[in-house]
């Protein structure tokens, strides 16, 4: 689904990212782990269009999407979420979802003024889509509330739901477990696994190894901007090089 090769990002003279090959297969959950400063978020920023790579290519379904701006990536089906949830807090939970729906006529000034009936029909369809998503995670009852009133875990859910409004091919989740209460973590995991079963592809940056264990089919270990190895949870957690990178060398 997503093929990354030779992706490089420099901050001045510092090579923050220098990836050889990362493959994110369709309808799987690929984990990206690594110690602090390994370049995990930089990797997401560079794939997701927030940063421009200095070299390398990113292919989505064989099409080159290297260095595209976020709104173009979204149109191609690649959406990211953020490490610290970025809810649109002045909007309601429902509006957070509605705003994500692509191709809405009512987003043009002229049609917003003069195509009122068409827009009403369009809105109803959008609300229907949002409702069926919100109902799946029991958030529909809160639909009218401001997004800022949600708990940390619910905000993460909201971000995933918002992304789902675009019917994406691939969602990049940046630390979904950060700031999430343990019970919510279970809800979040279940929901992500459900979406995977429906064919959505995920790439996840995560520190919480319980979550990585539950979710990830394949795990890449990143250190100092490069992928060091990849494999299943068992392979990765028993590899001495990985332990070394995380815990420092045993003397």
């Amino acid at each position, binding site marked *: 689904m997503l093929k990354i090769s030779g992706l490089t990002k420099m901050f001045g003279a510092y090579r923050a990212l220098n990836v050889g090959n990362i493959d994110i297969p369709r309808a799987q959950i690929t984990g990206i782990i690594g110690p602090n400063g390994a370049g995990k978020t930089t990797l997401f920023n560079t794939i997701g269009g927030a940063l421009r790579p200095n070299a390398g290519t990113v292919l989505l379904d064989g099409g080159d999407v290297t260095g595209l701006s976020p709104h173009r990536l979204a149109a191609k089906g690649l959406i990211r979420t953020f490490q610290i949830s970025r809810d649109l807090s002045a909007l309601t939970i429902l509006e957070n979802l509605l705003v994500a729906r692509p191709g809405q006529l009512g987003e043009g000034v002229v049609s917003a003024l003069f195509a009122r009936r068409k827009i009403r029909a369009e809105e109803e369809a959008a609300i229907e889509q949002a409702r069926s998503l919100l109902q799946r995670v029991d958030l*529909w009852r809160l639909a009218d509330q401001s997004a800022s009133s949600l708990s940390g875990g619910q905000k993460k859910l909201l971000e995933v739901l918002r992304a789902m409004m675009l019917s994406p091919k691939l969602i990049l989740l940046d630390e979904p477990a950060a700031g999430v209460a343990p019970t919510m973590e279970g809800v979040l995991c279940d929901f992500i696994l459900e979406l995977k079963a429906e064919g959505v592809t995920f790439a996840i940056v995560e520190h919480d190894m319980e979550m990585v264990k539950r979710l990830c089919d394949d795990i890449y270990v990143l250190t100092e901007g490069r992928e060091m190895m990849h494999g299943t949870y068992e392979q990765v957690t028993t590899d001495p090089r990985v332990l070394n990178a995380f815990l420092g060398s045993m003397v």
Partner: protein
Amino acid sequence: MIGYLTAILVVVLISALVALALNLQWGQAGMVNFGIFGFFAATSYVAALSSLAGYPLLISLVLAILTGVALSALVALVSARLREDYFAIATLAFAEAVRLFLLNETWLTGGANGLPGIPRPLSAYSSGQSYELLFFVMALVLAAICFAFAEALTKSPFGRVLRALREDDLVAATLGKHVLSFRIWAFSAGGAILGVAGYLHSSYFGYIDPTQFGAFVTAYAFMAVIAGGRGSNTGLLFGAVSVMVLLEGTRFLKDLMPFLDAGQAASLRLILIGAGLILLLIYKPQGFFREHRLRVDKGDTK
């Protein structure tokens, strides 16, 4: 007294229109337009010049609106990629450029002497006090149309995207929105309303000069939007009225406190207005009205 009242009401309507434009640009789209008085000045001058050239109401009005839209689109196109604070500075620079142009291009704008004798619209139908009333009704109709325009945009999916990118433009972009083009549209829609405000201003006063368009125009507009509640169109009507009531009401301070001389009374007026705004920001920072929110019927779930 009727004359004084209609005069105040027309002034309130004009400042409410400026605030309405600001509410679209800053209140919803998050684009801080400190230079709003420059756009207002430009549309006022275009309306005045075309009225002086003998064009009728509608043509002058449309020209003023087109000027507002074109200048806003241009400024937004060049500067809307800037961060919020730098964008504010860019608009201020634009306003200063407009002011210098108006002051120095004497052949066109009359320079510091301004443009006198701007024909008043509809004057063939009425005169004297009843004309004042007629003008007020015309202003009211135009303002109502602008209000309906702003309200329709606010409640549409377009308005929702504006509020989303105000909250977080990276998220809006991540969700596939072309942030720059939304900003240009929002800024231009505000510019259209400023065109109407400019037309009313120049045709009501019949005389314009550069000193009528100072930073105080921006200040009043921001006060109206803040008092009313950022993002709420209804709120800013309330805000514009209360700002004007404060401004006009404090004129009578001198009668209450005869021991003050004119200079002291004027200073006290400004102090009171400043204190009012500070109290408002402390005790009611969201203003008196809430911005539009979508309500849905969730009846079929428990």
